[in-house]
């Protein structure tokens, strides 16, 4: 029961209080791409949640075994990338072998949803925030759901953000980023903020 609560609380933190995109800006460029189509929103969120959740136990193992090493900080990206790569290739082979139709629909953007700063960034956040393996798992699941929330909010507004009423220079990418900034500001209500200058 305690383990379950650990997973749930870590997931809730990573969805709201420390949303990967809105609070950390991780995967902001992927968000812009994913928010164009409803299928992309779901596909990307599912892929991110899957990779981060499956990677989480391995990352926890690396952190536990090697965390004390002096050079661990600089070799972390290599270990994490290798972990993601193994999961990516094994998963693709399994899908290709047993679900060829699904493979066909996924292959166009699966590499984008796996090798991007949101996935590797989420794993680093797991490492920083997760206390035990359950915390890591919860953070992994919550990361994907957090991305889904952010991407859906952007998708829902995308038609208005491309309105001709918006000045041409701001239409598209700039106004989307401003909009995500406003969402991010709203999410700060969960945590509040302080700056060094205040």
């Amino acid at each position, binding site marked *: 029961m305690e383990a379950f609560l650990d997973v749930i609380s870590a997931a809730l933190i990573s969805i709201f209080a420390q949303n990967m995109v*809105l*609070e*950390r*800006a*991780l*995967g*902001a*460029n992927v968000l*812009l791409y994913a928010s164009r189509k409803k299928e992309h929103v779901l596909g990307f969120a599912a892929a991110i949640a899957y990779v981060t959740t499956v990677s989480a136990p391995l990352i926890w193992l690396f952190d536990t075994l090697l965390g004390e090493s002096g050079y661990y*900080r*600089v*070799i*972390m*990206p*290599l270990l*994490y*990338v*290798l972990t993601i*790569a193994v999961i*990516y290739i094994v998963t*693709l082979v399994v899908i290709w072998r047993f679900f060829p139709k699904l493979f066909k629909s996924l*292959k*166009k*953007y699966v*590499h*984008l949803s796996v*090798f*991007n*700063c949101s*996935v*590797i*960034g989420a794993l*680093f*956040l797991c490492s*920083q925030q997760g206390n035990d393996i359950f915390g890591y798992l919860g953070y992994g699941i919550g990361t994907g759901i957090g991305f889904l929330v952010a991407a859906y909010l952007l998708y829902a507004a995308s038609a208005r953000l*491309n309105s*001709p009423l918006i*000045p*041409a*220079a*701001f*239409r*598209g*990418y*700039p*106004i*989307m*980023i*401003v*909009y*995500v*900034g*406003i969402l*991010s*500001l709203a999410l*700060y209500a969960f945590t509040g*903020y302080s*700056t*060094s*200058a205040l």
Partner: protein
Amino acid sequence: MENRINLRDGLIKQNMVFMSGMLIAPVIACATTLAKSLALCFVFSVVSFAAILLCRLIPRTIVYTVRVTLYTVAAAVFYIPAAILAGLIFGEQVITSAGVYLPILVTNSLILSKTETRFYLEPYGNMVKDVLAFIVGFDLACAASGILREFLASGRIGGAEVPVLFTIPALETTFGGFLFVGIGAGLFRAVYNRSKKRAGANAADDEDSLAEYAEDIGEFLVGKRARSEKIRIYKAAAGKAKNENELLEMEFLSNRDVLAAFEAIVNEGQEIENNTANSEPAEEPDPADSGENGEKEDTENGSVS
């Protein structure tokens, strides 16, 4: 072909921060001071340049699934010396305060997608110049963000006090970063569009550049059989396929998709050529018309460029 490289693409026209948004997370969340932004620039430059140059050697016969994995692994390997050097140059405190934003640079879009859609389709010499232009474009945007945000948020530049009437501390935060980059991107585009208009090259510039790119790829695809008399045909095709090009820039398609898209452009060009030959020789397609069509489509679809 060797001299055709346009360095403005990487520096301005497709600037990774203000124009295409290919790498914005570190700038939004981390480039809040000059020291941190310089550390970001250093690690990004070393990792991206070394990884892109090395990964060019990876045979194209290897499937994309494995290739993209090797690109990332190569970048992560180059990150090790880059992070150690950055620690020595900028100090451990700066590196620690940059948090996860330095290591995530190993999965940046320049290495993972621009290589496939642009760099590895160019001759080696052109590619090196082009990569450097994109890297310098990012570095300038990142450094500008660091200087401006540090100045506006705390009245300092590089840690030194600067007389200032008021400060905006929220620029240190992530939402401040989003707003800064979003407004910066809009202003950057407005200035760029105005300067293009002033130069009287508003439509021609985009079309020419796209057409040149399409020509290069066209030549690549048809085994360098493209001749100078076909240039206008490819220009027309590229103008019509403007949306396709925007798509290629933004949607990080795999190399196979890029080739398929450009094959479609070349086929379309050849169709136009055939139709022209079958009707009247004087009535070749007008690139300006095609450009207009492209513009219309672009606006209707509201694509992000």
